[in-house]
């Protein structure tokens, strides 16, 4: 609970119309795409870093949590106010401040929707590649906090590869500028990279300097169908081995295919598995690469290979691809949604292992995702009302993580740890690694007021991090 003094101060700082304490409005800031609900005590819509700085200073002196939030579409609980507190919504800080066509840079406020930025730069022949499936609603700030990836990561990398510099409000209220607006820069520690992917626990981003590329001349979108998921996985590895770097190489299993076709109704064929492949670049290179991809797919058991005819077909395919995750609820009311990554050459082993786990625990596992970079979205489907199925689903997840780590992978490629994966953190990281991260957190946020209850499972027990939680 916030004291009346704090409430009055919040109104003074952000302006009466930019703060809400009403339960109805707080409810709308209590969830994200994990569908878990935690009511905050206030939501504030700041207009700049100075306001946020004042709020953070007050949070330190008064002891309340502060939780930054973009569009609330994260899959790991990064924006959930698990201990209440003040949600800082960036929905009103959404200006594109600058698109510098000479230096290929964009400067934006964190509330800009990723898609809107892409549309704006593409009009100028430029390209901002990171493309999480949520790109039409998620924000640059949220993308930076979670280091969002997407299908294009295989060729273009993830959000971190496009962040040159940031304006950040530190948990103790100082406003700092990290990084550069040049192509290179090594002065001091790379605080930019530290902030990107820190899930809003080390600082609040208020401005981002982003790297842009020239927009590829053409993109060709192709579909390859397979009877078996294993064949599709093999074809994926074969494409990489053939030294083609597609801009997208997505795999979709039969369950995902069925669910999403039910939703999107775009005429996706029934198949054991599907690969959605894009190559981009100049006309000649694209033609050559597309031919190579077709050859490799057919050599590896593709039963059908098609090229999208026009931009409407491409749009339909992407609409379908991006809706897979949510459409899976058509088969079961609940799911555990993981985004593991394995080395690209081990995708076949992963697919084989998932099949065994699915049978062992008698749970449906739907898989789809960025096969090209080894990042597969594994969805363990279950019904919460069925206690034994729910227990099996949980056990299956642990086994999936063991399998992933055994193959040399990681338990999260692009969603982050948040609250969803924190209990598994120790499976991947050593105690020494976790301790060093906690020391960084404690150094920057000694009172633990910024987005508490995330990433580290034992946070509550750690006196260095529990300042605000004790209240």
């Amino acid at each position, binding site marked *: 609970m916030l004291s009346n003094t704090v409430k009055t101060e919040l109104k003074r700082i952000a302006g009466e119309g930019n703060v809400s304490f009403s339960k109805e409005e707080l409810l*709308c800031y209590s969830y994200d795409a994990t569908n878990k609900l935690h009511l905050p005590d206030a939501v504030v819509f700041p207009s700049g870093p100075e306001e946020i700085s004042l709020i953070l200073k007050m949070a330190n002196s008064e002891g309340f949590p502060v939780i930054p939030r973009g569009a609330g579409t994260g899959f790991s609980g990064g924006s959930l106010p698990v201990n209440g507190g003040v949600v800082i919504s960036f929905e009103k800080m959404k200006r594109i401040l600058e698109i510098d066509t000479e230096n290929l840079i964009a400067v934006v406020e964190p509330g800009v929707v990723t898609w809107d930025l892409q549309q704006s730069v593409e009009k100028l022949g430029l390209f901002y590649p990171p493309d999480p499936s949520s790109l039409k609603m998620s924000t640059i700030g949220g993308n930076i906090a979670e280091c969002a990836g997407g299908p294009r990561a295989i060729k273009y990398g993830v959000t971190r590869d496009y962040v040159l510099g940031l304006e950040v409000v530190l948990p103790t209220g100082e406003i700092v500028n990290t990084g550069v607006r040049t192509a290179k820069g090594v002065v001091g520690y790379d605080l930019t990279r530290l902030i990107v992917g820190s899930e809003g626990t080390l600082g609040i981003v208020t401005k981002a300097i982003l790297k842009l590329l020239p927009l590829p001349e053409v993109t060709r979108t192709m579909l390859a169908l397979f009877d078996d998921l294993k064949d599709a996985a093999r074809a994926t590895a074969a494409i990489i081995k053939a030294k083609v770097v597609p801009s997208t190489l997505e795999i979709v299993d039969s369950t995902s295919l069925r669910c999403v076709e039910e939703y999107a109704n775009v005429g996706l064929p029934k198949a054991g598995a599907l690969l959605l492949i894009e190559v981009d670049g100049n006309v000649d290179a694209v033609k050559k690469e597309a031919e190579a991809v077709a050859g490799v797919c057919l050599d590896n058991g593709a039963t059908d290979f098609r090229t999208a005819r026009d931009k409407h077909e491409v749009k339909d395919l992407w609409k379908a691809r991006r809706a897979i995750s949510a459409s899976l609820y058509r088969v079961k009311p609940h799911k555990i949604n993981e985004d593991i990554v394995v080395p690209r050459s081990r995708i076949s082993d992963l697919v084989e292992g998932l099949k065994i786990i699915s049978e062992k625990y008698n749970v449906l596992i739907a898989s789809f995702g960025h096969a090209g970079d080894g990042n597969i979205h594994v969805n363990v489907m279950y019904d919460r009302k069925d206690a034994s199925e729910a227990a099996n689903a949980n056990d299956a997840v642990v086994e999936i993580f063991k399998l992933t780590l055994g193959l040399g992978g990681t338990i999260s490629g692009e969603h982050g740890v948040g609250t969803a994966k924190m209990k598994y953190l120790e499976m991947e990281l050593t105690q020494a690694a976790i301790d060093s991260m906690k020391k960084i957190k404690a150094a920057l946020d000694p009172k633990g007021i910024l987005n508490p209850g995330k990433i580290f499972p034992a946070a509550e027990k750690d006196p260095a991090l529990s300042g605000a939680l004790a209240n």
Partner: protein
Amino acid sequence: MKRLELLRDEIDKCVRCGTCRATCPTTKALGIETASPRGRVSLVDAYSKNEIGLTEVYLKHLKECTLCGACRSNCPNGVDTIAIFASARAEAIEKNGVPLAASLVFRNLLDTGGLMGLGLKLASKLQGLLFKDSSAGMGLLSRFSLPLVGSGRLVPPLAKTFFLDLPEVKALSGVESKSGRPKVAFYSGCGINYLMPELGSKSIDVIKKAGADAFVPQGQVCCGMPAYAMGDIKAARAMALKNLEELERADADFIATSCATCGHGLKRLMVDILSDEPELKARAEKVASKVRDISELLIHELGFKTGSSSGQKRIVTYHDPCHLGRAQGLREEPRDIIKMSGNATLKEMKNPCLCCGLGGGLMYNNYELSMDIARIKAENIKNSGAEIVATACPGCMVQLRDGLHRFGVSAQVKHVIELL
């Protein structure tokens, strides 16, 4: 809470993925979660579980929705958001009662010849005192700041003589069909009757030219969509019943309308709202199966064709009414009419199916937000470079005229059949 309890599974189906944020006109206009479908579903969810009451804040956000259906069409999980929001509004009306002004309007729209008719006829005579003609000639500008109207707002003038009162229309009430020609009952709806009788007359002309016999059932009343949107299910049901009886009596081959909302009201709402009685439902389905939007009638039923190009071609863009494109799946037909007109070049605007901002009672509930949405629409129309924005719904026409006027865009607003 009964209405919402029936929708429990539907409400639970929302997994809060947030996909709807990208398509909702009010989210686009305001950018905040309380103005998003996901936020509204969460509010209704909390209300249905007694976590919040029927508070002012709750009702404010519930009423911000235009019921355009974009979220429903794009929901990966297929959540029937429209049913949730409409039921929540109905629930609120049952508890709080219908707002007085709306109640008066709905009660009178039930009876076209009654009080409302008289009141509106009087208003039609007096409107010159309160309004002046806009320079663009598209409507009336209020001379003073009026309650419910505000100053500087472009409101459509009430017709001097309502469509259903036109002598030539009255004469059409009992036309016998000539042999072999399809018999088409024209349903005007309120927009055409009170505001745009010339659009009704044009519709009749076109239907006749296309080789059918048109007549106008005189006992028709409002389609019920405005009452439904406000949550006044009782009024909407009474209207549906009255129309059912009148349209059954008409015994036509087709029932045509030039209003997207009326078309949806007769095809879908009439059936849904009467489905509590199996016998009524069957009768409503039979009548609904004859209902056609005018573009659908012309193209699919009457095989309408026009002559070749007549003179200079003008650039026309098309606005998809939510109740035609999304609700009835009619996107190509009105565009075909534009192409057929012979004097237009169709140029698409960005996001033609974005709601105009009038729907769901928003123009009445929250005019400012309604205009925030109209601003986006006006900008898209302006950027298309079109001289004319054509659409297929008198409601959208009223809103587009107001929005274009307000934001200084010079494009003219027309119904697609006015291009013929």
